[in-house]
C-alpha cells in the first residue's frame, strides 16, 4: 500500500487572518454578509428603514409643527400640493403652496377648503418656528421647512383638530418605531436568559419555564392588553406611560424568543463539535461562548428582526383601541384612531396616511428579515 504524499511546506504559514476576498478564508459572518449583499429586496428595505429611523431621530426638526400646535381655522384640511407653476402659468424656481380658502359646498352645505391661488407661499428651508429641544438636549427653534406667516403648510392635510398630519406622522414615528426596538430588546434579554436555562439545563426547570410560556401564550391578547393597560394609572407623564407599554409588550414577546433559544440550545448541545470540545477538556463556559452562542446568534438576529413588525402592529392596534399611547403624545396607532369613524374615511381619506407608513415599515422589516434568514441559512445557495 502506498503511503500518503505529504504536502510540502511552501512558505512560512501566515497566521494573521488573510485579508483576501477568497470565500475559503471567509468566516461565517462574512459569508452571511456576502449573501445578504446579493439580496436586493433586503438591501432596499435596509435603506428605507435607515431613512425612517433618521427621520424619527430628527423628528422635531423635520416636522414643521410641534406636537401641541393646532389651528381651529384649518380643521380637516386636505393635503396641499406642491407647485412650481402658478395659476398664470409662470414658473417658479422655489416650490410653493397656495393658501386655503374655506367655502361651502352648494349642495351638501359642507364646509370645504379650496386652494386660494391669490396667495402663494414659497417653501422656505431652515425657518424659525416652535421651540423644541434638538435630540432632547439643545434648545432651538429651527425647522427644516416652513412657510411665512400667515401661510400654513399641510403636506398631508390636517386632522379633526386642525393639526398637521405630516408633523404628527413624523413625530409619531418616534414612538411607533422605537417601542418595538426597546420591547424586542427587553424580550430578547429575558428570552435569551430563560430560554438558555430551559435548553441548557433541561429537566424540571425546562418543564416549569415551558409551562409558563404556554400559559402566557394561551391568554387572548386583546383582553390581556386591556387588563394590563387598565393597570397603568391614567394621569402619568408620557415617558412613564411609554415605559409601561414597552414592558407590556416585552412581557408577551419574550415567549417566542425563549422558544427559539431553547430549541437551538438543545440541538447544538448534542452537535458533534460541541461533544468534541467537551472531550478535549474545554470548559462549559467556553463551550457556551465559543460554540453554542455563535451557532445560533445568526438565527436570533433573524428571529428578532421578524419579531419587530409584530410589535409595531401590536403597538398600533393597542393605540388604535385607545389602550396604548394617549394624546397629546402621538403614535401611528393614535393617529389612526380618527379613522375609526366612517365619516372620516369617506370624506377625509388623507387620515389614512399613517396606515400606509405602518404597512411600509412592516413590509420592509419582513423583507429585511427574509434577507437575513436566507443569508444565515448555510444550506441555501
Amino acid at each position, binding site marked *: 500500500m502506498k*503511503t*500518503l504524499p*505529504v504536502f510540502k*511546506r511552501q512558505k512560512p504559514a*501566515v497566521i494573521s487572518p488573510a485579508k483576501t476576498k477568497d470565500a*475559503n478564508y471567509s468566516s461565517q459572518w462574512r459569508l452571511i454578509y456576502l449573501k445578504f449583499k446579493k439580496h436586493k429586496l433586503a438591501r432596499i428595505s435596509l435603506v428605507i428603514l435607515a431613512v425612517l429611523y433618521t427621520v424619527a431621530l430628527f423628528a422635531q426638526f423635520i416636522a414643521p409643527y410641534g406636537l401641541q400646535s393646532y389651528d381651529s381655522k384649518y380643521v380637516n384640511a386636505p393635503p396641499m400640493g406642491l407647485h412650481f407653476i402658478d395659476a398664470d402659468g409662470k414658473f417658479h424656481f422655489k416650490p410653493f403652496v397656495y393658501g386655503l380658502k374655506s367655502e361651502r359646498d352648494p349642495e351638501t352645505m359642507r364646509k370645504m377648503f379650496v386652494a386660494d391661488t391669490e396667495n402663494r407661499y414659497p417653501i422656505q428651508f431652515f425657518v424659525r418656528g416652535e421651540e423644541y429641544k434638538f435630540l432632547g438636549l439643545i434648545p432651538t427653534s429651527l425647522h427644516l421647512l416652513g412657510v411665512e406667516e400667515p401661510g400654513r403648510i399641510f403636506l398631508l392635510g390636517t386632522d379633526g383638530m386642525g393639526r398637521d398630519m405630516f408633523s404628527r406622522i413624523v413625530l409619531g414615528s418616534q414612538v411607533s418605531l422605537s417601542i418595538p426596538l426597546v420591547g424586542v430588546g427587553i424580550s430578547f434579554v429575558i428570552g435569551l436568559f430563560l430560554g438558555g436555562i430551559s435548553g441548557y439545563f433541561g429537566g424540571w426547570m425546562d418543564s416549569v419555564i415551558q409551562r409558563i410560556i404556554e400559559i402566557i401564550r394561551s391568554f387572548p391578547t386583546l383582553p390581556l392588553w386591556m387588563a394590563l393597560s387598565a393597570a397603568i394609572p391614567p394621569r402619568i407623564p408620557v415617558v412613564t406611560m411609554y415605559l409601561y407599554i414597552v414592558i407590556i409588550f416585552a412581557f408577551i414577546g419574550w415567549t417566542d424568543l425563549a422558544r427559539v433559544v431553547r430549541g437551538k440550545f438543545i440541538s447544538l448541545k448534542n452537535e458533534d*463539535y460541541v461533544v468534541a470540545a467537551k*472531550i478535549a477538556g*474545554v470548559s462549559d463556559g467556553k463551550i457556551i461562548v465559543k460554540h453554542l452562542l455563535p*451557532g445560533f446568534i445568526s438565527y436570533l438576529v433573524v428571529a428578532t428582526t421578524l419579531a419587530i413588525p409584530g410589535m409595531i402592529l401590536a403597538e398600533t392596534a393597542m393605540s388604535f383601541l385607545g389602550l396604548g399611547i394617549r394624546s397629546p403624545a402621538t403614535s401611528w396607532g393614535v393617529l389612526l384612531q380618527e379613522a375609526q369613524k366612517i365619516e372620516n374615511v369617506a370624506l377625509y381619506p388623507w387620515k389614512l396616511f399613517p396606515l400606509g407608513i405602518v404597512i411600509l415599515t412592516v413590509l420592509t422589516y419582513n423583507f429585511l428579515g427574509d434577507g437575513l434568514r436566507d443569508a444565515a441559512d448555510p444550506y441555501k445557495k
Partner: protein
Amino acid sequence: MTKKILNVENINKYFQVKSKKALFRKPASVHVLNDISFELLEGETLSIVGESGCGKTTLGRCLVRGMDASSGNVYYHTEDGQQIDFLKLKGKHSKQYRRNIQMIFQDPYSSLSPRMSVFDIIAEPLIANFKLSKSEVEQKVMEIAEKTGLNVNYLQRYPHAFSGGQRQRIAIARALIMRPRLIVCDEAVSALDVSIQAQIINLLKDLQEQFQITYIFISHDLSIVQNISDRVAVMHLGKIVELATTESLFSSPKHPYTEALMSAVPQPDPELKKSRIILEGEMPNPANPPSGCHFHPRCAYKTEKCVQQAPELRQVADNHFTACHYAEELNLQGVQDETASAI
C-alpha cells in the same frame, strides 16, 4: 507481554424513553449497554463491530466521557503503572488524564465547528489544556498539520472550504494534538468514499506506529476491520457476544451472529460461491429484549436452552471469548479467503 491501558468493567447504560401513555407512569428505560467488560492493551487496535443500533457509538462515547455511563467502571492505566478510575475523575485531575483519551467522530461535517478556522479548531484542545505562548501553539499546530497531511498554508481557512477526507484529517489533527495514548475512532472512515478511506486508514496506521497510539475502532465495515485491527469485539443488542483476535474471529467464528456478519463481507472473487446467511426479522427491540440469549429469535441453531437461559461470555479458545451455549459444538463458517477482502 504488553501493558494494559484500559480496563472496562461492567459498563451499563440506560436511556429513558417517554412513552405516550407515560404521563403518570414511571418512564421506561432502554438498556443500551449491558455489562460491557473488556481489557485494552497498549498499542493495539481493538475493533468494535455490530449492526446499527447495537450500542457501538454509545460505548465509544461513554469511554471518552462524552456521555455518562449509568454504572460500571473504566480504569485507565497511566504510563507509570498507576490505575485511575477514569469515569469519576473531577476537576484538575480530570483534565490531566482525560486528554489522554480522545475521539474521532463519524461525520467530518458535523464534528468541526463551522464558525472557527481550521487553525483554531486544531489549537482549541491545546489552549484548553495547557498554558502555552502563541508561538508555541502555532508551532505545535503546524507540526501536527504536517503529520496529518494538511497543507499548512490553508490553516486559516474555514472547514467549509475542505473536502470530507481533508476534514477528517483536521479531526485527526485535533485529536492528536494533545498526544493522547488512546483514540476512539467512531466510524471514522464510514462517511468517506473508498479511496479516501484507504488514505485515512493508512494515516491512522502511520500515526499509530509513530506515537504508539492505541485505537478503539468502531465500525460496521468488516473489510476495514479485518485490515486494521488486532482484536475484534462483536456487539449485539448492547452486549459483547464475541471477542477474539482478528485472525481467529474471521477464520473460525464461534457465535452464530458473527457467522452471519462474516457471510455479509463482500468477496471480490466471483468464482467463489458462498452461501449468504440472511438473518430473519429485524434487531429485537432493545426496550423489550427477548428472553434468554438476545440473539435467539434470529438464530438458526437455537434450542430451548437459548430461549430460557442467557449465555455468559466465556473463553472457548486461546484469546477467544464468546457468549453462546453451543460454541464448541457448532461448526461455523468464517471468511474463506482472508486476503481477498483486504482493501
